[in-house]
């Protein structure tokens, strides 16, 4: 008998009922809720007269809409305010634990979960947000769901799911200087495409992944969805266990020992078979920058904007032409010659303490370039913010001319007042460069925290290795 992959182990341990067609009713250990995708789910419960199946399995936090400015002030946008207050009211009515807008633990849901020990290895975890794949970095089966599924989990603590195929992405070797987790995942997406992982559960492995911190692993798993995969994961090792130890909701005492013993098994067996295996060598990966309107439209920073005329596939060539038109770019332009207008360091991809340290190391003692109209640093959570301030990182950013903000999703998607104006170009540590994502008509270039910090200083991207 061949061994099991990590995904199969997680799947098998959560099957409540198996159906004839290969799908199964899966038990969901945790659900994270936020204000944008939950109101209709709570309303659904209310209309049907249902109660949450196991209320303690849920944790709610406001993140998408929250302003990142002074939290003692009321939320100015009346529509956002209603949505935030609706979450407060729903959580009060159904007795769901919530980190409200003034709670020091508030932050982006995918930063908060692991940070609080709410996400643990071996769990199934869902959230009405596609970047839920982040939590797979802890050896959990975590995936984004729609609002109907949020309601289904609230009411039954289960979901009907179809088993995914498995793909191992192995990155062997060691990363070069200046190359980070963000560059790995952007390079993977550039290689397999934005639908390359559709229908698959991704597992990231190999020496370069093993060498990453938990923050780095979360960055990679976070963007699994940008490769089309609902879920991405990394096997449990000492790095995982050291990260979880002592977190507020992590098990303690005898239960900790029991849990760790069980978590040690959360690795793919040596003889496990994956449906697909992709390999890249860490040496091949250079600092990445996106040039288009899909995360797969990405290249190494020392390259040029590609020419659609050289693309043989007609649908793809049309998409490239459209993307360049939207981005206001000419084929052949060096990626380092494109002037930026705004800088965004934040999001569930890159707003953890290590990301801020990485950016601050580049910024220290320097000034934001003249052509940059605004440079934002938005910590991923109140806990990250406090830690960064204890390390003096806020001073580093402020002295360089950055704004140091309160935690939230902010300019990653611009549901709050932080957004791009039409035609503005932004170097961003976030995860999506879709048309209009950061503001209608806004132009997004995705890159790592170090690369974005360097773009702030120079006014355009530079090769961080130089």
């Amino acid at each position, binding site marked *: 008998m061949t061994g099991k992959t990590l995904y199969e182990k997680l799947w098998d341990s959560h099957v409540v009922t198996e159906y004839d067609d290969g799908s199964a009713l899966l038990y969901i250990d945790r659900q994270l809720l936020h204000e944008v995708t939950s109101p209709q789910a709570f*309303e659904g419960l209310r209309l049907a007269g249902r109660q949450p199946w196991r209320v*303690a399995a849920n944790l709610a936090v406001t993140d998408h809409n929250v302003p990142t400015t002074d939290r003692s002030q009321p939320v100015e946008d009346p529509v956002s305010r209603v949505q935030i207050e609706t979450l407060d009211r729903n959580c009060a009515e159904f007795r769901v634990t919530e980190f409200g807008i003034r709670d020091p633990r508030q932050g982006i849901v995918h930063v908060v979960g692991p940070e609080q020990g709410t996400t643990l290895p071996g769990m199934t975890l869902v959230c009405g947000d596609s970047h839920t794949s982040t939590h797979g970095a802890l050896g959990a089966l975590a995936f984004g769901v729609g609002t109907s599924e949020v309601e289904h989990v609230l009411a039954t603590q289960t979901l009907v799911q179809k088993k995914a195929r498995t793909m191992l992405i192995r990155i062997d070797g060691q990363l070069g200087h200046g190359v980070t987790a963000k560059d790995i995942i952007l390079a993977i997406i550039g290689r397999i495409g934005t639908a390359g992982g559709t229908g698959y559960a991704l597992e990231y492995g190999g020496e370069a992944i093993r060498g990453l911190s938990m923050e780095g692993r979360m960055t990679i798993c976070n963007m699994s969805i940008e490769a*089309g995969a609902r879920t991405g994961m990394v096997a449990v090792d000492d790095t995982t266990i050291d990260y979880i130890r002592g977190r507020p909701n992590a098990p303690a005492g005898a239960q900790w020992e029991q849990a760790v013993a069980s978590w040690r098994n959360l690795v793919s067996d040596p003889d496990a078979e994956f449906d697909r295996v992709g390999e890249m060598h860490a040496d091949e990966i250079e600092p990445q920058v996106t040039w288009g309107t899909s995360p797969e439209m990405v290249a190494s920073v020392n390259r040029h904007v590609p020419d659609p005329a050289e693309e043989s596939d007609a649908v793809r060539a*049309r998409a490239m032409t459209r993307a360049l038109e939207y981005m206001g770019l000419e084929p052949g332009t060096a990626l380092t010659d494109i002037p930026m207008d705004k800088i965004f360091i934040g999001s569930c991809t890159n707003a953890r303490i290590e990301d801020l340290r990485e950016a601050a190391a580049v910024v220290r003692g320097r000034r934001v370039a003249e052509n940059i109209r605004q440079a934002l640093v938005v910590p991923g959570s109140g806990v990250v913010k406090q830690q960064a301030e204890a390390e003096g990182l806020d001073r580093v950013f402020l002295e360089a001319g950055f704004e140091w903000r309160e935690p939230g999703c902010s300019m990653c998607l611009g549901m709050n007042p932080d957004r791009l104006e039409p035609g503005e170009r932004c170097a961003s540590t976030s995860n999506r460069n879709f048309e209009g994502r950061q503001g209608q008509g806004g132009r997004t270039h995705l890159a790592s925290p170090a690369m974005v910090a360097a773009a702030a200083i120079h006014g355009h991207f530079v090769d961080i290795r130089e």
Partner: protein
Amino acid sequence: MEPFTRHTGLVAPLDRSNVDTDAIIPKQFLKSVQRTGFGPYLFDEWRYLDRGEPGMDCTNRPRNPDFVLNQERYQGASVLLARENFGCGSSREHAPWALKDYGFRAIVAPSFADIFYSNCFKNGLLPVVLDGAVVDRLFQAAYATEGYQLTIDLFEQQVHTPDGECFGFEVDPFRKRMLLEGLDEIGVTLEEQSEAIQAYEQRRKQEAPWLFPEP
């Protein structure tokens, strides 16, 4: 949920790959706490020339004449013909809500993003995967023939063209049942699976008690 059995409708061809859910329904409209009312803002940034805000009356907004849904011949379309990886990006169910609210009942494409695909079934909207070459031909036919219609039969799992051609498609039996009968999936789970869920919890609490913290 409105059931889906068999539907015949006018086809609107949206000739772009990787259409993301940010494009289907931009973020500012996600601030609504309702499930309805998203139709007028479907593809807002492509459809209108001004900046859309929630609650806006769209009747007199300037329209982008180049956008397919603004063309006279596609008014009343209920079948959307699309390209690869339709619905990629965010998990927002507001995307299928907006498509359904606009009047679409089915989307035909060579591939869909997973979360979007799953969300459609919860809302009486049928995503149909057909071979890329077939979709190419349907695009040509939709451009060539004004008033081009397709019939989609969920029970038979077939798409019928006006020329009498017929293409089969796959759909999971569970999702098919829910959609054909318009069932409340939560009600079905509670009715059929409550005991199994409780039994699972009892067993799991012994194996992994740390997963069940007290409230």
